């Protein structure tokens, strides 16, 4: 006699076993599928109701699978719950640390409270990569080195028209004056 417990190795079939339906399923070794051509003919000749019942069965198994997963989570032991709580606490610690770095703790907390998920936000400011452009680096270096070739500084030779505000700020910083006092040369009259 065929034993159900041997056949129902997978979780899905285990659920099927516990269902009230009592239908005999032959072992897999005894099933001999028809050749491909014949199988296609069988499928074509089968009535539409048969295919509909198959899809209904599939849906049933999906629903049962979901039920089983929920039942698993509900049946977690207390130890598992404690470990989950500890993991959540660790997440909260990470969240506060990131908020300190970004400087927008309120935003981070608000986002996480809305969605229930913590998502790592990039600290890097948008457009910061343009500062690594070799032309920009060369220009800033020349500005800091007081290069004589920059007496007439035409920025369009160094930067594209799509240069962002970060790049422009960096260039302006290179031109910015400090509080260092210096005697004027003969050019300036008063």
């Amino acid at each position, binding site marked *: 006699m065929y034993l159900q417990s041997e056949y129902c190795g997978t979780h899905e079939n285990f659920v099927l076993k516990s269902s009230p339906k009592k239908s005999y399923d032959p072992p897999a070794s005894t099933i001999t599928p028809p050749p491909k051509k014949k199988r296609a003919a069988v499928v074509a000749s089968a009535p539409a109701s048969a295919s509909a019942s198959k899809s209904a069965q599939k849906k049933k198994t999906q629903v049962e699978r979901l039920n089983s997963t929920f039942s698993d989570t509900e049946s977690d032991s207390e130890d598992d719950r404690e470990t989950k709580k500890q993991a959540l606490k660790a997440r909260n610690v990470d969240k506060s640390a990131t908020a300190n770095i970004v400087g927008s703790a309120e935003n981070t907390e608000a986002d996480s409270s809305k969605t229930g998920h913590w998502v790592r936000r990039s600290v890097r400011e948008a457009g910061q990569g343009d500062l690594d452009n070799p032309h920009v680096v060369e220009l800033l270096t020349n*500005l*800091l080195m*007081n*290069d*004589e070739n*920059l*007496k*007439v*500084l*035409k*920025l*369009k030779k160094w*930067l594209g*028209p*799509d*240069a*962002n*505000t970060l*790049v*422009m*700020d960096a260039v*302006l*910083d*290179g*031109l*910015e*004056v*400090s*509080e*260092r*006092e*210096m*005697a*004027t040369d003969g*050019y*300036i*009259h*008063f």
Partner: protein
Amino acid sequence: MARSFRSAQHNDVVEALYIQNFNIGMKDAQFAKLGNILRDNPSIWAINVGEIYQIENSTWEAFADCIEESSVTHMYASEHTITGVLKDRLRDAIRKNRSKHNRHIDPNNIDVIQQITHCWWNPINAKILRPYIKNNDLGLLGSR
């Protein structure tokens, strides 16, 4: 009498600055910063801020205030970005600034002066510089 000035620690080489057509990078904050730099850095005496469209009128007014206190003697700004009144104010300011220094008419600075073009009034057009302009460079002058 020699006076002391706040001078550029990072850069006191730049004499002319061309920042035209940077609409993404030049916003109100950057433009205000530029005005402060021009006011505090006496080495810059020519500026081109044409084709910059993202600037508020109030920022342009503040910029004009800075120009009045700066050493800028020659400049250009697109007329369709500023009012006619503001343009007159800017031109008056840079004309007054021409008494603050003589780098724009110094024959020893002719190499730089020749490169400064596309201003409302180019420094190479100064009559005092005519004897120092080579025949090859006469094309830099406007209508003679």
